[in-house]
């Protein structure tokens, strides 16, 4: 028999929740309207009502282990209907931020990103400064004199330089994500029935690919479109990056690629998807406050970095084709800095929801898989 839980209220948690925009939890009187309207809530152990009570009581451990935190897609159907204006959507968003911070490896980075309201200049500025310094040190801050009319960025910043930064950065991010993911998986699995990880992966990926669950939310339909577009834009961009490595080192393609080259086409299509997705999401955020939910610094930080990565990426290409190399280089350096920022803060920013939500889905679907077999 499980030990009787002792509910110990936590002042600190309440304070942390308040900082993350979840202080409306205290308004909740447990009517359960939120769970009733939520189309994503499972029939057994539905949410968000339970999360609201755990948040009021500051039950950080139980929240960290609660898959419901990640099953919520923050459509805000609950917030729109909440009779107490307790904004469950915002509260769960704040809980996610706190869980990301709690599970972060190493912890101080979690806290640093968690404090994005204050730390964002550092988080964004440092990677950009790093690139400026690196390029200065390696003599790439100046435009080469003999730059052809159709130049490629490789002629400004050598690929080797890029890969020697991004491979370790990605490796680090993956390591940190792996550690956090392990912690999370352990919490999910603790005390529960056996779960087939691999059994869950395939259905989870197919769900994620279509954003099936997102479709059931009423209050924020445009968000699903934006989110799905953005996801596929990122997938396209990632695939393009991989193909380019092949193109450069295996196929020895000449840079810049023609606009008609399949790799280029894929890259540009991805860029278009990213622009559309980001525009929809930003517009949604700026729209009807109740449906969109509260904007927190943690949230804005992530959204802004993503948006700027996209903007600088697109601008880099435009600049290469139509503007001066000096300007193009400046944009490109900022772009590289932002991408590095995105890579390095992946496990600690809102970006980490990709990790936790995916794992939760795998756990949930793997559980279903395990119970079937």
């Amino acid at each position: 028999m499980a030990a009787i839980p002792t509910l110990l209220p936590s002042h600190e948690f309440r304070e942390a929740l308040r900082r993350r925009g979840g202080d409306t939890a205290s308004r909740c009187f447990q009517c359960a309207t939120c769970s009733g309207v939520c189309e994503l809530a499972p029939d057994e152990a539905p949410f968000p009502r339970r999360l609201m009570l755990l948040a009021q009581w500051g039950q950080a451990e139980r929240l960290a282990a609660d898959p419901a935190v990640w099953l919520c897609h923050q459509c805000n159907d609950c917030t729109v209907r909440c009779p107490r204006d307790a904004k469950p959507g915002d509260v769960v968003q704040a809980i996610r931020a706190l869980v990301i911070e709690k599970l972060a490896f190493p912890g101080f980075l979690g806290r640093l990103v968690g404090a994005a309201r204050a730390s964002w200049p550092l988080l964004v500025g440092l990677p950009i400064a790093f690139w400026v310094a690196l390029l200065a040190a390696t003599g790439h801050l100046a435009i080469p004199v003999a730059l052809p009319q159709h130049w490629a960025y490789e002629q400004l910043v050598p690929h080797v330089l890029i890969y020697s930064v991004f491979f370790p950065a990605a490796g680090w991010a993956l390591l940190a994500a792996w550690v956090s993911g392990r912690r999370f998986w352990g919490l999910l699995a603790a005390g529960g029935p056996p779960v087939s990880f691999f059994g869950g992966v395939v259905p989870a990926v197919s769900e994620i690919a279509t954003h099936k669950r997102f479709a059931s939310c009423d209050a924020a339909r445009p968000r699903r479109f934006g989110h799905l577009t953005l996801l596929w834009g990122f997938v396209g961009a990632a695939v393009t990056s991989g193909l380019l490595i092949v193109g450069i080192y295996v196929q020895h393609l000449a840079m810049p690629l023609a606009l008609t080259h399949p790799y280029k086409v894929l890259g540009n299509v991805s860029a278009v998807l990213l622009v559309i997705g980001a525009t929809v999401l930003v517009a949604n955020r700026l729209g009807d406050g109740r449906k969109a939910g509260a904007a927190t610094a943690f949230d804005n930080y992530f959204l802004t970095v993503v948006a700027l990565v996209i903007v600088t990426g697109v601008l880099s290409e435009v600049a290469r084709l139509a503007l001066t190399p000096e300007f193009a280089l400046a944009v490109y350096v900022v772009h590289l800095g932002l991408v590095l920022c995105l890579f390095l803060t992946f496990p600690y920013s809102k970006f980490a929801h990709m990790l936790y939500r995916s794992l939760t889905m795998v756990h949930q679907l793997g559980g279903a898989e395990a119970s079937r077999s």
Partner: protein
Amino acid sequence: MTAAPRPLLVVGGGIAGVTAALEAAEAGRDVVLVERDACIGGRVLRNHHYFPKLCPPTCGMEINTRRLERNRRVRVLTGARVTACREDGGGYEVTITHAPAYVTERCTACGACTPVCPAKVKDPFNLGMAEVPAIRLPHPHAWPKRFVLDRAACPDGCHACRDACTYEAIDLAAVERTETLAVGAVVLATGWDPYPLERLPELGGGRSPDVISNVQMERLAAPAGPTGGKILRPSDAQPPRRVAFVQCAGSRDVNHLAYCSAVCCLASLKQAIYVKEQLPDAEVTIYYIDRRAPGRNEEMLTRVAAMDGVRLVKGKVAKVEPNGAALALRLEDVDAGRIVRAEADLVVLATGMVPRSQDTSVFATVIDEDGFAVERPGLAVAGVAHRPEDVAASVRDATGAAARACIAAGRSA
């Protein structure tokens, strides 16, 4: 001995207003009671029974009307409204506008006019759930016992009722008239309106005839109601097998009414008894946030909770959708920690009470955030005009309000 104090003005002829008027009059004060409707009784007479005793409101109103008839100190003005008010020397000068008296005091309620009336209107006494002739007795217990005419419904040039009346009691050319009165103090007892069903579309309000309000349920159970007291589904006039009561439909909800309407839990418990008494096999479920049965009313909660075929489920209903002939409900059952998808044949929304602040504004009344009137010296407030409360509490504070108005009026003399 100084001059006799000016009369009190009581605005509203529901249970609170009638009580305030009578209590002051029986303490020896002159009172003018103004009621906008054609007869007194207001909301309570539209109830089938009172909780927790399950007794008919007409019984108490019988005593009150007899008190009014015996007491020459109360002047009852029905079909009248206060349309202007000005403070004067510690009292008020008020203008009262009388609706046109198409049917005069000569009416004997003989009933000769009704059968010849060609026009039909939605019956306001039965909350629009039945059709009645344009000229009629408002309801079997109407006081004053005088017919009313919905003049707007008359076909052009029709005077069939006037021709049928032997007592010259019908004046189709009657016009609105006003009078001015000097009163010493005012008791506001302007009561409430039910929160409109149409504002609750997510709970099926206005989207299915079988989603009704608690006030409509009272009419369905009442012998003088549209079904003669039979509880039937409006859509097909069949007795419902499954009845769901949705508590806090509008109340305790910042999107609708931020306050608790104070009576809906007990009203639903009472209505659950109506259903079980008529339809013993029916399944009744009451979905609630908190069961609010203060004081002795707790007995009724205990009694209903123990009834066979009645369940009380903690969880606010989130959605009601028409689903074929039935209605589908979705909510979290908090005790079970599980989403419930229930079906019902009849859904009763426990809609709340909205104060009639439109009737208090003429007195430049301060209202609170929720529209309830705030008392000030010389302007006492009774009943639901100042807070959501049940009949017993309304009567209690109508008595206190009468005292305060007497005190203020005494000073003004």
